[in-house]
């Protein structure tokens, strides 16, 4: 584990303006995530878990507080710079997989590499390696509609790893899966973490949270 944290958040606050009045989704959250760490964030619905994940993933900007990724303050960056950080340093896994339906498993995994400008030969090698890593090399030419839920999530994990991110953010990664398939995905995420990628999982699933090295509880926008 290196000395510099991957994520260092201080007093992160996120307020959503609403017609009925502002809603405080995050209220002064401070968090430090080290390289190769496995963190689970649990809590009731609406407590701010997903908002925290979105802030850590640079898809949302905080109302107040500071956020540093690899020592760089990202809160004030322009959209293009945050896009670049998401592309190169962060991987996302979603509850609903969100694979592009018109692309094959292979093409879904290749897409982020293509966006980064990776040469074709390297893309092919990396995509083949990742599909083998998640055990889906035989399903490379299949579209999402031809895959099971567990297979789609495995493709999503391969896609998230495509550009070798240092941080993987997972939002209820087993939320749409049955218990057995969810356990397989949890095993796969453990392996990803063991292979050197820091992992932050937001989940209601106690069993999934129990696998993390550090478990954080959230309540009303604060870390308990």
């Amino acid at each position, binding site marked *: 584990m290196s000395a510099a944290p991957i994520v260092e958040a201080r007093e992160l606050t996120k307020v959503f303006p609403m017609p009925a009045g502002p809603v405080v989704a995050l209220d002064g959250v401070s968090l430090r995530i080290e390289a190769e760490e496995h963190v689970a964030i649990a809590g009731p619905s609406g407590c701010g878990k997903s908002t925290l994940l*979105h802030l850590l993933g640079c898809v949302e900007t905080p109302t107040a507080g500071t956020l540093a990724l690899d020592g760089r303050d990202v809160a004030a960056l322009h959209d293009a710079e945050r896009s670049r*950080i998401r592309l190169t340093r962060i991987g996302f896994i979603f509850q609903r997989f969100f694979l592009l339906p018109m692309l094959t498993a292979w093409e879904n995994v290749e897409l982020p590499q293509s966006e980064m400008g990776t040469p074709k030969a390297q893309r092919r090698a990396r995509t083949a390696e990742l599909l083998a890593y998640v055990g889906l090399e035989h399903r490379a030419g299949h579209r999402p509609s031809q895959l099971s839920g567990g297979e789609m999530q495995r493709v999503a994990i391969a896609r998230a790893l495509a550009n070798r991110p240092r941080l993987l953010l997972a939002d209820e990664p087993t939320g749409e899966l049955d218990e057995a398939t969810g356990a397989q995905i949890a095993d796969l995420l453990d392996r990803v973490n063991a292979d050197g990628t820091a992992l932050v999982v937001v989940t209601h699933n106690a069993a999934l949270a129990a696998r993390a090295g550090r478990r954080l509880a959230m309540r009303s926008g604060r870390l308990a």
Partner: protein
Amino acid sequence: MSPAGLAWRSLCGQPARAVLGVAGIAVVGALLFDMLLLSRGLVVSFRDILEGAGFDVRVTATDAPPLLGPPLRDVEKLTAAVRALHEVRDAVPLRTGRAEAIAADGSVLEVELFGSGAREGVGWTVLEGEGLNPSGDLPVVVNRRLAARLALAPGSKLRLRGTCQASSAVPPVELTVQGVVAFPFDAASGLTAMTSFAGFLQVCAGEEADLAELLLVASRREAGAEGAVAAIRRARPDLNTFSNEQLLNRLQRTDFSYFRQISFVLSSITLFFAFLLVTTLLTVSVNQRLGELAVLRALGVRRRRIAAGLLCESALLVGAGGLLALPAGALLALGLDRILRAMPDLPEKLHFFVFEPRAVLLHVALVALTGVLAALYPVYLVVRLPIAATLRREVVS
């Protein structure tokens, strides 16, 4: 994968939407193409007819439309003076009148009669026999329909009784058919005969000699039409002299402007429909794929690239529809042209829809512009898409 590749896959992923979109653009594009053909079709066609006659300058007595104003006087002297100009290659006075052609069984046919002061046969296409030889004995050339109706061939005799002056009855005159020809301004159902000046005066007995409704002038190549017009105007400023181009410009400002205005209005409407169609298709598509697009953004795909993908999608829809519109529009133009040309008394060679490369270029440019404009709103939606809020909505829904 390139934006174009993603756009292609997106369209293939929703084939019904893509086919409907392309079909809609093809129909609207066909109408647009036809309106572009119509906007200049009459001018182009009329120019072809004018130039096909072999004369590029016309002289009339006043600025009334040719053949509708008062006649030119002292035509023999006028023709000689014009022919003597350095800028002029030839000048041919033309008289117009009406006559009855008398068939062998005594039945009569209404005929449009021309008297030509040409030194040699010019201004028409010979189909049988030869052109009008003014030195012949009361020569006449007839168009194909008159020849067919009266079974005329070179060497046949044609009896014509002039009706130039409705109040007087004149005896019929027998003329010798020298040829069957196609006149440039022949109406589709018209019966036309052309004789020499002498023949004309005999058929239309009682008509004043040395008159002509029109003087047709061919300029010398080195002087050009404008040079000939200037020379004639200097010599005879009292007359109305104009080139084919000037006549066309006048017609474009007057008679033909109705077609141009109609085509402009209908073109604008069709373009607006194309714009609405593509905008609606793309907007619906974007709204159906908000989750996908938000995920693409979350994965780090730049706004510019997603916007480029939408522009490519628009270009593919509009491009395919626009290409199909060309043959569809051409077929439609043939049908519409046939309907319009069925109007009576129009020159047979006159077309309302005429193909021009510039119409294709304009069609491509307008359709491309529409495609870009139509993609602007969907692109705006994508560029402004809030990633986190969209992902939250997608999960909740």
